[in-house]
């Protein structure tokens, strides 16, 4: 076991997969010489050379396009879009090209590509660097969407994403870059599409992603002292969504809360609520609660962000209300 932070766990994953498979390459803005604008690809250029770790122009549409064409012709590209907020510039390549190729051409082309991106929610850096737009890609057939919350998950899921034959949108969380965890030294994979129960509990199912997993776990400690045991489920991939694990939990707890950094309308909270209703309506004692930031852009500054985003206290309050 070695203690690794979230950022290095991801670098390790990419490094291992690049060593394992010469078809894997990484391209994006400042990923090579600089080792990543936020350090997310340190050492990879030296280890794998300038053709396989390559800086691109600031051209998000063609960065994704590069991945699409390379995947169609036998490579396994990892293309990086520095922040998910920039998806507005490359959704066409993601949605109309990458996501539809395998389908349209009846499997004639495999599309093994990873679109590596990041949310910097709650880092205080304003409206163009902190959005949680995973719903956009979760809405699109042909894509898989991953959002790890821990270093070990990040590593295992990245390795699976690289080996997957479909376009995978991999969303890392800058606010989690420095959290640490002991990770086994042997190779391991974490399958896409499998939720993880981050804490078992009997009273309320709390579904949370990314940063919110940690806030939910902190809330669990407080609630536990009051005798309320929440079960914290991290879907880890939101498409495909592991409905079974969530529903099995709700069957037991009869109460559910979904907490996200993303907005409520058309977001994961609504999707999970609708799924629970579909599969566990008669098990619910109370309606599923959704805890999200209010429907505003993200202003600059941590003060505004702390006010807008769910936190330990608001999760505790929401759970208490479900138990009332």
């Amino acid at each position, binding site marked *: 076991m070695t203690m690794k932070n979230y950022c290095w766990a991801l670098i390790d994953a990419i490094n291992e997969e690049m060593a394992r498979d010469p078809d894997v390459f990484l391209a994006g803005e400042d990923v090579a010489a600089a080792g990543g604008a936020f350090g997310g690809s340190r050492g990879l250029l030296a280890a794998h050379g300038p053709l396989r770790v390559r800086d691109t*122009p600031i051209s998000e549409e*063609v960065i994704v*396009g590069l991945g699409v064409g390379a995947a169609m012709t*036998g490579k396994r590209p990892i293309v990086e879009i520095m922040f998910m907020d920039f998806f507005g510039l490359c959704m066409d390549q993601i949605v*109309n090209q990458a996501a539809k190729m*395998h389908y349209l051409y009846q499997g004639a082309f495999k599309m093994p590509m990873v679109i590596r991106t990041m949310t910097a929610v709650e880092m205080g850096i304003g409206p163009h660097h902190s959005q949680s737009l995973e719903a956009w890609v979760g809405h699109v057939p042909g894509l898989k969407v991953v959002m790890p919350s821990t270093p070990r998950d990040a590593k295992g899921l990245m390795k699976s994403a690289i080996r997957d034959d479909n376009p995978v949108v991999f969303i890392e969380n800058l606010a989690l870059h420095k959290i640490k965890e002991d990770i086994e030294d042997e190779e391991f994979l974490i399958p896409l599409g499998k939720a993880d129960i981050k804490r078992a509990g009997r009273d309320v199912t709390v579904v949370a992603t990314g940063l919110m997993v940690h806030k939910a776990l902190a809330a669990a400690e407080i609630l536990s002292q009051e005798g309320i045991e929440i079960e914290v489920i991290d879907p880890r991939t939101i498409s495909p969504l592991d409905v079974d694990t969530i529903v099995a939990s709700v069957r037991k707890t009869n109460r559910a809360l979904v907490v996200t950094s993303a907005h409520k309308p058309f977001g994961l909270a609504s999707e999970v609520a609708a799924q629970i209703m579909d599969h566990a309506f008669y098990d619910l004692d109370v309606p599923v609660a959704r805890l999200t930031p209010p429907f505003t852009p993200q202003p600059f500054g941590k003060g505004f962000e702390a006010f807008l985003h769910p936190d330990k206290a608001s999760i505790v309050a929401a759970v208490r209300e479900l138990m009332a």
Partner: protein
Amino acid sequence: MSPRKQTAGAKTPVGPVRTVEPGHIFQMYRKMLEIRECEDQLNTAFSKNLFPGYIHSYLGQEACAVGVCSALRDDDYIVTTHRGRGHYLAKGMALTPMICEMFGKANGICGGRGGEMHAADPALGILGGNGIVGGGIPYATGAAYSAVLNGSDQVAVAFFGEGASNQGSFHEAMNLAAAWNLPLLFVCENNLYAEMTPFSASSRQVDVARRAEGYGIPGEVVDGNDVLAVYAAAEAAVARARSGAGPTLLELKTYRYGGHFQGDPCHYRTREEEAEWRARDPLIRLHAHILSQNLSSESELDSWREDQKAQVAAAIEVALSSPDPDPNEALSFVYAS
């Protein structure tokens, strides 16, 4: 690490005037005939409501696809557009499965799910059409980069219209290909119109080829109705790409005889303009060239046309009598497993 030589800076390409073998000329002529017949007969079939969707005819532009693809190998890649049938055929796609695809039939090359705007054949390096104007150009860079990574000397070609050259995707792809020195040909078929809008209304620059300068690569205006000129320009650009000298932008000046799609009344252009371009018909010109050089006889050329006519007619017959896809098939292939 790359086996290609890296050469910097832009030179305007001046290909050596080379004699093309008669056999090669005949191949080009027959391919142009195949496309011409295909487009003619599909138009007729579409007008009779024999198949659904739209038809974006390639009539008049045959020399572009054939001239460029004649300079390519089977293992080279092409990416095309909504107006892609000429490119599919020129790159070698089999006629019958392609026509069945246009009819949305189960035995179409994509099982009928691609329809008029989408067909592909990995074995021939045909990487698909597109419903998004400019949507294919970005991913052509990826195909070219695969070749670089493999150390092969394959090239990739992105076909697109002059209308697409106003898309951001064109710019980003041109710039990346130039900066990375990719083995990629950008082939702009300037048929003067994007839907109903003349290029003069959407660009102050008359020649798309002049945009190459902004990326430090060669750009060349070519008579897109002269298949031998297209072939010569493409051959030189392909050779440059294979040798590691990077991308080229070719602008092929041409004209679509039909409307944007079959049925478009073409109010936006004059009958005189149409007649002028008809007088520069690529098939008539190659026909005249073959006869003037005594490479073949009128009767032989006629027989080839009859031959292609019959083949297209037969393919359409197959399409007409082919089954529609089983709708349940729509549920398959969403994800690779």
